[in-house]
């Protein structure tokens, strides 16, 4: 794997970008950029598995990311016993009811395959079940939401280590993808794009408004971490010793004892932040490498060959006896699971879950730009895309600021146009993304690192 030139390009770009930002801005910024790049890379790999390997267009990335995020809440947050005793049973009963509705729909679908009124019957059941569900769950939901509305007002989670939630997020996403895939995967490419986009809209609406589950727009803050907290680090002896050791030359220049102590204190505070981010980086890097390894293995296996065959010529693959529908569903679930994993990672890194922040532009289309820019069908391309696009996304505001300042340097400070442009600096990132995507699609339609055609 190391011999692969794409691998080298990919990771040298990543190292260079991080070091550049570290040198010119600060190591804290560099590491947080690196972390988000790594998370983006995982997302991009998930989309790349669906789009690059199988040619399935999934514009529902945002929804799966939100489900992954929801998983962190459901797994890591301590449960709220009062809420459980107030409305837990009601929620469980309505869950059972929902389950029985789904089950009966499935039974009808299976037992009466050719009945004239089958579809109307199913439709009727679903339509009737919605008000009934509200009737059953409504009182318990309002009871749960009224308990400590300002601080909790939801059921809480399972109080497990947050790392578990990454896997749970992936499993949840795979389950949702199974349902979505059953409904949507038969559609033609552009219909699939639109319908997955709309499904992700529904998912976001649910996560946003079911406050008993996710606190909705009230957000969940202070999530657990898989790495130590800054405050604990600052008080632990080994960390202070480590900082002292690393900065011994700087410290030895300061002669006064008090000054030296305060200087050390400052160093400890600033490096505790960097250390935490570094821990995150190591975990994320490990995730990226593991997924990359398996993804590459899969791509070069007979299964990967079959997927490419299905992508390139569905009819021929069907004629060769491949079950296209089943494989599509499987790869849709697989890709969505990876996206959900990334969603849980993102929420873990942020330490808070804000359902209202999920917007298609940032969480669906930006990920797509990463895949298309990096190289469809090439895992390294997806990783590179994740890095480059996130780098541009973060750095385009300072860059635009610089350009505007140069271009308008002859204008007065209070000039209306200059002020207006300076206020709109954050939006230049959209412009950069759009132009970047258009240029790549025109001049390098296969992306920066095109797919390698493997010949046996």
């Amino acid at each position, binding site marked *: 794997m190391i011999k692969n030139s794409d691998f080298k390009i990919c990771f040298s770009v990543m190292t260079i970008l991080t070091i550049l930002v570290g040198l010119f801005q600060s190591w804290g910024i560099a590491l947080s950029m690196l972390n988000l790049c790594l998370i983006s890379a995982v997302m991009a790999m998930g989309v790349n598995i669906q789009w690059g390997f199988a040619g399935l*267009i999934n514009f529902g990335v945002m929804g799966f990311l939100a489900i992954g995020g929801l998983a962190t809440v459901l797994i890591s947050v301590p449960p709220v016993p009062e809420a459980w005793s107030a409305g837990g049973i009601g929620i469980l009963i309505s869950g059972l009811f929902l389950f029985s509705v789904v089950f009966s729909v499935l039974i009808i679908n299976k037992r009466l395959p050719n009945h004239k009124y089958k*579809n109307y019957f199913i*439709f009727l059941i679903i339509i009737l079940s*919605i*008000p009934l569900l*509200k009737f059953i769950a409504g009182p318990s939901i309002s009871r749960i939401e009224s308990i400590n509305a300002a601080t909790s007002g939801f059921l809480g989670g399972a109080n497990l280590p947050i790392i578990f939630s990454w896997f749970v997020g992936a499993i949840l996403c795979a389950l949702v993808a199974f349902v979505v895939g059953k*409904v*949507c995967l038969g*559609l033609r*490419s*552009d*219909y699939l*794009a*639109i*319908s997955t*986009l*709309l*499904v992700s*809209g*529904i998912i976001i*609406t*649910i996560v*946003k*408004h079911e406050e008993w589950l996710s606190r909705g727009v009230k957000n969940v803050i202070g999530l657990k971490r898989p790495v130590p907290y800054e405050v604990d680090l600052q008080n632990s002896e080994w960390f202070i010793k480590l900082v002292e050791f690393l900065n011994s030359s700087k410290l030895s220049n300061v002669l006064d004892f008090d000054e030296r102590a305060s200087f050390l204190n400052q160093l400890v505070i600033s490096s505790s932040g960097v250390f935490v981010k570094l821990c995150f980086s190591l975990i994320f890097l490990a995730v990226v490498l593991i997924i990359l390894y398996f993804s590459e293995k899969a791509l070069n296996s007979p299964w990967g060959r079959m997927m490419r065959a299905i992508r390139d010529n569905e009819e021929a693959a069907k004629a060769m006896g491949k079950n296209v529908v089943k494989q599509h569903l499987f790869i849709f679930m697989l890709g969505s699971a990876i996206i959900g994993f990334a969603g849980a990672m993102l929420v873990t890194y942020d330490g808070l879950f804000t359902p209202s922040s999920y*917007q*298609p*532009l940032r969480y669906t*289309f930006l990920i*797509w*730009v990463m895949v*298309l820019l990096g190289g469809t069908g090439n895992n390294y391309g997806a990783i590179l895309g994740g890095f480059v696009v996130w780098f541009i996304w973060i750095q385009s505001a300072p860059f635009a600021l610089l350009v505007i300042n140069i271009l308008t340097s002859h204008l007065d400070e209070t000039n209306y146009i200059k002020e207006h*442009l300076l*206020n*709109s600096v954050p*939006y*230049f*990132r*959209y*412009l950069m*993304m*759009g*132009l970047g*995507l*258009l240029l790549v*699609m*025109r001049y390098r*339609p296969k992306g920066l690192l095109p797919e390698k055609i493997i010949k046996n």
Partner: protein
Amino acid sequence: MDFLNSIILLTNFIIVPGITYGSQLALGAIGVTLIYGVLRFANFAYGDLMAFGTMIVILVTWFLQSKGITFGLLPTALLALPVGILLTIAVSLFFDKTVFEYYRNKKSDPVTFIVVSLGIMFVLNAVVRIIIGPNDINFMDGHKFIMKAREFKQMTGLNEGLALKSTQVITLITTIITCSILFYFLNKTKTGKSMRAYSNNEDLALLSGIDPKKIVLLTWIIVSILATVAGTLYGLDKSFKPFTYFNNLLPIFAATIVGGIGNPLGAFYGGFLIAFSEIGLTYAYKKFFKYIMPETLEPSTLIQFISTDYKFAISFAILIVVLIFRPNGIFKGKVI
């Protein structure tokens, strides 16, 4: 009396808003469907094209207002509309020349077109936010209400009021005018017929001597007009915010597909279907039943099918139901 009251109640809270919102969606959906029918791709940049057109209208409105020109009782934005339309057409044609034409000549697959339209979406998104900012802008001026609820109550002596905003009437009238011209054009004129022929069967149309360049040009012009008009009407009725316009793309897509993608008449009905189901299913009918039911049977709950939070989700759910049972849409799609 109670019966009349209940009718007025429904008119005020469901029918009037439904018709207004439905008209706006319908205009948008016809635009999307035309692009799909003639140029054969789903244009994700459409919401932002609407935002762009509306932005120009707002800027011209501000300019006119600063010169002291208003349109009397009507909003000044209507005067600014032609300028907005012209600039939107220019932008559409610019993107067609620089971006879409290349892929059309290469006969790229629909997915490439979608991806490219995403790029344009990003660019337009940025342009609108850079020029006018991301904030809510209210540019409605002129006479606000045709009839206020209180006046209606005094006039008729009923308990329930019927409020009629002038923007609602303007929306309805503009939609009727625009759609009648459009459908006359598509069904009766030679150019319109050639456009439908091109959409129906490209090769056959080429054989009959229809100039594809002219058809494409015409489509972009019509689409830009529709986008600007729909965007301006929506902005007048509610307010202008770039993000809302981007979000409106989703119900517009739903309306397009529900009505049968590529079918303008279907898109028209689809818009109203989506609008009425969104409003009708989230309305709390408690008061309505209070009027028509005898007192002993008065409801204790809100009688609301689903909470207002799920307004957007309803249109998506309808779309998914339609996709499962009638993938071609309620009206048969892919012919304009």
